[in-house]
């Protein structure tokens, strides 16, 4: 039974990774850039919910919507101010800028909210699921996170494949110049991509902080890096790949912690990533060759 419990914990963590990885992969897939600040947008999303729900006492659901709106504005602003002027610059310049934005967000949060850990109250107040006479408890936040990440994965896939703006995104991802020759507003399309990625970050932030209820300015940093690994693992740019990569990463990490060593868990996770990339350089579901960053 303990194996099943560890597995479920892994899926719980993995579904948070999956949610974050979806944002990463979406932005990478369309704009061909790694938005390393994505994890920190999650942290900001967490603080917005903390301030509005715990501080101002508004309904948690409304707080999530406020947080999504705030993160969307933040994401679009970051794109407009930091990344758009670098369109056409070397990928390295963009990457360094993204890392800079990441530090900026962490330090702004440090300044505004302080370095102390905030106790985040779980917004998922549903009953936990008890199985086998209480021998196995699945937390409701786990169930909600898994369901939400599946819905978002399916929704995003549908959006990209079936809607006009989704197809414009595919066109932009393949060839920005040719997309412009079709009359597609490339900058606008990339802004929409950031808006979607950042509103997902807000959802991920809430669920991350609900499952692991402590919030600091560095809360988004490590899950952000892990989720990036998950996205590469699954095949960066691939929406189902991000989901599968996230879940697998969470499960591997948790099982390593449980059965091998909690200190070595991260090392094991990264070793597996390296092995996967050696065997299949494009990741599990990736099609195109991975671009150098």
């Amino acid at each position, binding site marked *: 039974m303990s194996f099943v419990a560890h597995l479920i914990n892994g899926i719980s963590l993995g579904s948070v990774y999956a949610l974050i990885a979806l944002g990463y992969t979406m932005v990478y897939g369309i704009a061909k850039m790694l938005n390393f600040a994505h994890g920190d947008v999650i942290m900001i999303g967490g603080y917005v919910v903390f301030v509005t729900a715990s501080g101002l006492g508004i309904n948690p659901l409304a707080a999530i919507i406020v947080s999504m709106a705030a993160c969307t504005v933040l994401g679009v602003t970051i794109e407009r101010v930091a990344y758009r002027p670098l369109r056409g610059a070397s990928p390295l310049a963009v990457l360094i800028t993204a890392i800079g934005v990441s530090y900026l967000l962490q330090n702004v949060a440090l300044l505004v909210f302080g370095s102390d850990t905030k106790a985040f109250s779980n917004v998922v107040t549903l009953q936990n699921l008890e199985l086998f006479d209480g021998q196995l408890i699945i937390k409701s936040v786990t169930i909600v996170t898994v369901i939400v990440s599946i819905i978002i994965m399916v929704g995003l896939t549908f959006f990209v494949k079936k809607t006009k703006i989704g197809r414009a995104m595919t066109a932009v991802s393949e060839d920005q110049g040719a997309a*412009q020759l079709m009359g597609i507003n490339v900058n606008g399309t990339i802004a929409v991509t950031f808006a979607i990625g950042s509103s997902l970050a807000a959802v991920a932030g809430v669920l991350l902080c609900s499952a692991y209820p402590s919030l600091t300015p560095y809360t988004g940093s490590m899950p952000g890096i892990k989720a990036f690994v998950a996205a590469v693992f699954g095949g960066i740019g691939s929406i189902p790949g991000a989901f599968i990569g996230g879940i697998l990463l969470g499960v591997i990490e948790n099982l390593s912690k449980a059965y091998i060593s909690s200190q070595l868990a991260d090392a094991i996770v990264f070793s597996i990533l390296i092995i996967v990339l050696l065997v299949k350089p494009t990741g599990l579901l990736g099609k195109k060759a991975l671009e150098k960053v």
Partner: protein
Amino acid sequence: MAMLEVKDLHVHYGVIEAIKGISFEVEQGEVIALIGANGAGKTTTLHTVTGLIKPTSGSIIFEGKDITRTPGYKIVPMGMAHVPEGRRVFAQLSVYDNLMMGAYTRKDKNEIKENLHMVYERFPRLEERKTQMAGTLSGGEQQMLAMGRALMSQPSIILMDEPSMGLSPIFVNEIFDIIKRVSQSGTTVLLVEQNAKKALAIADRAYVLETGMISLEGDAGELMHNDAVKKAYLGE
């Protein structure tokens, strides 16, 4: 007034001046050929006209409107389409979706449908392969797709950048036939070509571009018999 007027255009890549003050005009209904050696600046010229690159100075007037600083995506709905060098079809989209991308700025569903019908009539191969991924088409088929895609925006002028590049002689003839028919249906054509002989044969007038400057211009039939053109571009 000419449909498209380019005046004293200068374009730089960094410090390198690729276009050094060219002027040309395209009248409604004409086929204009723009010929020149590799690196002369033909592609740069077309890219600047459709807004992919911004010029350093000079002006581009299209149907009376100054589009020199207009973002490229806003030029398409004004009636200008561009078949880019190297086709640049969307490899991961189906033939049908590629054609629909061409109609991206249009709203009227029925008109788009009619237009699609017209494109399929002109390029029966595209209809046969409409569900196929564009990346798996042959080079010639991709060229047809790139042309069909441009026609889906119902342009009043179409810019084509070396449509016959890399195609077998039979396909080359087919492509030139299509250009002729596009022109006959009332669309103005600005054609960049390496195949100067064929381009001059279907063009009304032509410009010869040499390292960023126009060295010769005039009636296509006359240029065909010009000694300098014969020597440099017709291999005679």
